[in-house]
């Protein structure tokens, strides 16, 4: 009897928990550094490294999305573009990094492009980029998280990380998202 019961309790039946268990920043920083080194050994260029980091971030993002919406928003998903972006800038950032992102901006030239700007990003805090690595920004990991969250919430987009006013995440939405937003 006992073994039948054991098989029946799957992980999805366990309660979610309140969230916000805190972990030492050093633990995360050390783990992240190992991950960057692991990826670095398997690629030949900086942009491939950023892609690999972004893939790891996407894995995190897909799982984070449901967790956040269930817990923070009481099971209600965002359907409007601007609300989704504000959710990411405020709630999502606060949950993950302990504070809200510094700025959210809309591009002047391109309707589909938005920027989230942060002067000092958590994952980059203990990383120094050598000159030969050029434009490497390990916040590609966070960009992957954001991309997965947006794609999962049905706002298809591409997110990349850049060195601009600190760290800037450039979010480019699909045409379909804007068209749909105009109708809602």
């Amino acid at each position, binding site marked *: 009897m006992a073994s039948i019961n*054991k098989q029946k309790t*799957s*992980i999805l039946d366990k309660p979610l*928990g309140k*969230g*916000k*268990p*805190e*972990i*030492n*920043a*050093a*633990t*995360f920083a*050390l*783990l*992240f*550094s*190992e*991950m960057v*080194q*692991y990826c670095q050994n*398997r690629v030949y260029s900086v942009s491939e490294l950023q892609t690999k980091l972004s*893939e*790891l*971030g996407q*894995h*995190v993002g897909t*799982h*984070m999305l449901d*967790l956040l919406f269930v817990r923070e928003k009481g099971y209600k998903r965002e359907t409007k573009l601007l609300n989704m972006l504000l959710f990411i800038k405020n709630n999502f950032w606060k*949950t*993950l*990094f*302990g*504070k809200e992102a510094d700025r959210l901006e809309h591009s002047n030239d391109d309707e589909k492009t938005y920027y989230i700007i942060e002067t000092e990003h*958590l994952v980059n805090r203990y990383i120094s980029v050598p000159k030969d690595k050029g434009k490497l920004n390990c916040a590609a990991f966070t960009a992957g998280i954001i991309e997965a969250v947006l794609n999962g919430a049905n706002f298809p987009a591409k997110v990349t990380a850049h060195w601009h006013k600190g760290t800037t995440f450039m979010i480019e939405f699909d045409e379909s998202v804007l068209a749909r937003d105009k109708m809602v």
Partner: protein
Amino acid sequence: MSRQGTRGVDLRKVNGELFSLTYGALVAQLLKDYEDDEEVNKQLEKMGYNIGVRLIEDFLARSNVGRCNDFRETADVISKLAFKMYLGIQPVVSNWSAAGDEFSLLIENNPLTDFVELPPGHSQLNFSNILCGVLKAALEMVQMEVDVRFVQDTLKGDNITEIRLKFVKRLEDAVPVGED
């Protein structure tokens, strides 16, 4: 209040779920790259080793703990100080061997395995094997060679996660060749 909003953030703390999910992403990526449980176990231990070498320095700098006099003290420091500081949990030290050179750490809520379940077909995978690497390296840096392995794992259906540490030998600092 003279402090701004952002200053209220404790810079030394990070969201635990971000950490758990990040570790999960890493293991998933390793499984995709190596496809073999034993290989992944080895990679995790290797990465844990690299982390442990740096972690022990951070630990000694922050905790002001002096040299441990015997293995029992080491066990206490690991469970009460180190695990508490880095993972926020306090495992129970138990199952001491008769000679006093082997003990177990019993972990109830492993933060690395939040939200994780092992699919069938990966029964050989030690998901938290990175911990073995970290412990081994950290103790090696303080002149103790210790054998670390998993005995029980909640992901595999056991009630509790148990890591066994066995003291092998004391390491002497090697004198560089030419200097005697």
